[in-house]
């Protein structure tokens, strides 16, 4: 399996003085679901921004699908943020169409693709609603649909469910896995929730506190499709525990 | 620090322009006398009895109007904030009230009270009361329900709620209320004096303007602007002192 993402010796320093990331190297094989966890401020969001082409690292290389990514490339890499950041003056459907409209895609094609995405995230019929008429979970679904509409092979997600209550989070996680299994994309997902990490991931990368380094890679061998019942198993608890101990370790 | 330096530089620039442009004749000195001459005139004016009397009258009007408006407005404001029903009835009306030029009622005050000290005070108090009302209502509403709940759950009496929760929580806002209300109050008095009066600094300024006595006019403008800014900054400093705990 070829690597969808390769990061080599990446380091980053804020404003020339504050080290944020230290010597990060990782390989994400195509089609895998990778989760990154780490304490607050460890630089995981910065790393994601660099993978998305929204920020440039001080040192080291990043290749996504074999090419570097100096600028955002939404047809290659889709990004989903913690805040859905839907534009309040556009309907849900228009929000999904937005990236396509930036490229001058013809109207009927935009509509067709957006509606397909709406269906994929389970919101058929809600297209004409404005963001303020949608719940938190629904807004995130629209945000995911927007990130998927250009069918990028790579999907980066920065704590997309953090602002949701726990029950919605669990539902959304499950939905995300469903969507992922039908589209075979490569996903890099950041979260604070250890349960979420073990539930979703093929592999969990644990980062240390600032300056962030990768201190552990944990393969999650639980069978797919994942179910809620798995959360009660001993294996699940063991994996969670391992992550927790890694994060708690004083440096 | 750098920001303060830039601001001071801007101020110096403006003052220098005020001095140089008229004195060099680039701007007509009859329309805009050079700053130096204006300041000289200011010193002169402050020594004249007529000016001193006018200032005294205006001060008195400002104070009396303030003393009337603040308790009245505060009482009404607290009432609207505490009583949901009254709030619902009157708040939308208040929006409209603030969109109206209250100066149009000045003739009414003159018709009833004549051109007099009382009329000017009444008008200024009238305009200021609304502002105090709104600020007071906002101040009361700003006290977080959570704080009150905690105090009540510990058995605080009504008096204790007022003194131990409301007042400390509202203090910065109350000072801000005073500050902003004074701006309105001052304006109200000046407008009343400029409109129809034989006394007061507003009247003096208006008549200097009518008689093209530009030096005196600008001297008066500087004096009043300085007084307003000083008072404002003093209250702002006090606000700052009592709100160190605010986010």
């Amino acid at each position, binding site marked *: 399996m070829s690597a969808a993402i390769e990061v080599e010796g990446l380091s980053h320093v804020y404003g020339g003085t504050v080290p944020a990331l230290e010597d990060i190297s990782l390989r994400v094989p195509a089609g895998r679901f990778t989760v990154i966890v780490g304490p607050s401020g460890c630089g995981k969001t910065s790393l994601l921004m660099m993978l998305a082409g*929204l920020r440039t690292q001080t040192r080291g290389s990043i290749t996504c699908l074999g090419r570097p990514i100096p*600028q*955002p490339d*939404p*047809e290659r890499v889709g*990004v989903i*943020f913690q805040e859905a*950041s839907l*534009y*309040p*003056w556009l309907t849900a459907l228009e929000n999904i169409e*937005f990236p396509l409209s*930036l*490229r001058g895609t013809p109207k009927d094609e935009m509509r067709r693709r957006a509606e397909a995405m709406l269906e994929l995230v389970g919101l058929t019929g809600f297209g004409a609603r404005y*963001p*303020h*008429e949608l719940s938190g979970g629904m807004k995130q679904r629209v945000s995911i649909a*927007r990130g998927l509409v250009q069918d990028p092979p790579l999907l980066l997600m920065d704590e997309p469910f953090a602002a949701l209550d726990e029950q919605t989070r669990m539902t959304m996680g499950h939905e995300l896995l469903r969507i992922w299994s039908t589209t075979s994309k490569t996903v890099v997902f950041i979260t604070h929730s250890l349960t979420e990490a073990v539930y979703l991931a093929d592999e969990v990368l644990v980062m240390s506190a600032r300056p962030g380094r990768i201190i552990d890679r944990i393969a999650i061998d639980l069978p797919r499709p994942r179910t809620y019942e798995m959360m009660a198993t001993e294996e699940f608890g063991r994996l969670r525990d391992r992550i927790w101990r890694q994060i708690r370790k004083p440096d | 620090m750098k*920001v303060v330096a830039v601001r001071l530089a801007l101020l110096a620039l403006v003052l220098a322009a005020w001095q140089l442009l008229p004195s060099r004749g680039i701007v007509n000195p009859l*329309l805009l006398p050079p700053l130096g001459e204006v300041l000289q005139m200011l010193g002169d004016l402050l020594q004249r009895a007529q000016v001193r009397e006018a200032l005294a009258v205006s001060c008195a009007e400002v104070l009396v109007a303030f003393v009337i408006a603040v308790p009245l407005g505060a009482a009404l404001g607290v009432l609207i904030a505490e009583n949901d*029903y009254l709030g*619902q*009835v*009157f708040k*939308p009306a208040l*929006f409209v009230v*603030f*969109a*109206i*030029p*209250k100066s*149009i*009622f*000045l*003739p*009414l005050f*003159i*018709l009833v009270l004549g051109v007099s000290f009382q009329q000017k005070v009444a008008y200024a108090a009238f305009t200021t009361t*609304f502002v105090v*009302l*709104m600020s007071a*209502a*906002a101040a009361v509403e700003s006290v977080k329900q959570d704080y009150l709940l905690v105090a009540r759950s510990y058995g605080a009496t009504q008096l204790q709620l007022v003194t131990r929760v409301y007042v400390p929580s509202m203090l910065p806002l109350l000072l801000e209320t005073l500050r902003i209300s004074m*701006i309105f109050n001052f*304006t109200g008095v*000046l*407008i009343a004096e*400029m409109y129809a009066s034989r006394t007061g600094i*507003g009247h003096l300024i208006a008549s200097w*303007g*009518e008689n*093209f006595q530009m030096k005196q*006019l*600008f001297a008066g*403008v500087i004096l*009043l*602007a300085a007084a*307003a800014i000083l008072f*404002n*900054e003093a209250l702002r400093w006090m606000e700052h002192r009592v709100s160190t705990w605010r986010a």
Partner: protein
Amino acid sequence: MPAPATVRRALLVGLLVLWELVPRLGLIPELFLPSMSKTLTVLWHDARIYGHALLVTLMEVALAMLIACGGGILAGAAVGGFARLRNLLLPVVSSLYAVPIVILYPVFTAWFGVGSESKVAFAGIYAFFPVLLSTAAGIQTIDPQFLVAARSMGASLRQQIVRVVIPASLPTVFAGLRLGGALAIIGVVVSEMLTAAAGIGYLVTLNRTILDSPRVFAAILMILLLSIAYYVLSRALERRFVVWQSAGKPLQLAQASTQSTV
């Protein structure tokens, strides 16, 4: 208890009834309070005069709005959008806010005379600073994540401005227009009352000095109607065009109360 809106309407009707009856019954002299019917009659009689005065006032308001909203919104957007400018100028502007701008009015009449120019200048400046402050504050409420999201979707700089910044600023711009118009009306009316030769405010003063109360009240009524009409119109426009904002922040009353010092 009856619905608040009903109470308000009842109070309004009550006031109008009092306006008619109290003077008629001699409870207050007609000099102080002419009855509503007298006022309306006079207004009808002199409709041409009042109409002409209204046009003068409206023209001055429109020009003042051009200065205040045009300049105020652009300056406010600049100040609000650029942190350096903001830190530099905002405290200065809010300090200047404490100065009663009316003191500048005699300066304007000395410079521009008693005609419309001085009114436009005064009302323009009067409305300018509050619009600037309001726009600067509004621009800052725009979620910076909007631009990050746009960039991540590959939007060019031009697209970011046209497709994100401008739509996101619309509520602020509309609020600025509403505020600027209201303040321009107030500024023009005050200056017309103080020294003028034309306009509705002038009619108030003129008739007051000859103790013609019905005509004074007629002029006051016109101004009231004008202000209220503008308020209603601008709110309606705002709701219509910024329909998605309706779920957002309702106008804060405390804010509204401190925007005009007159």
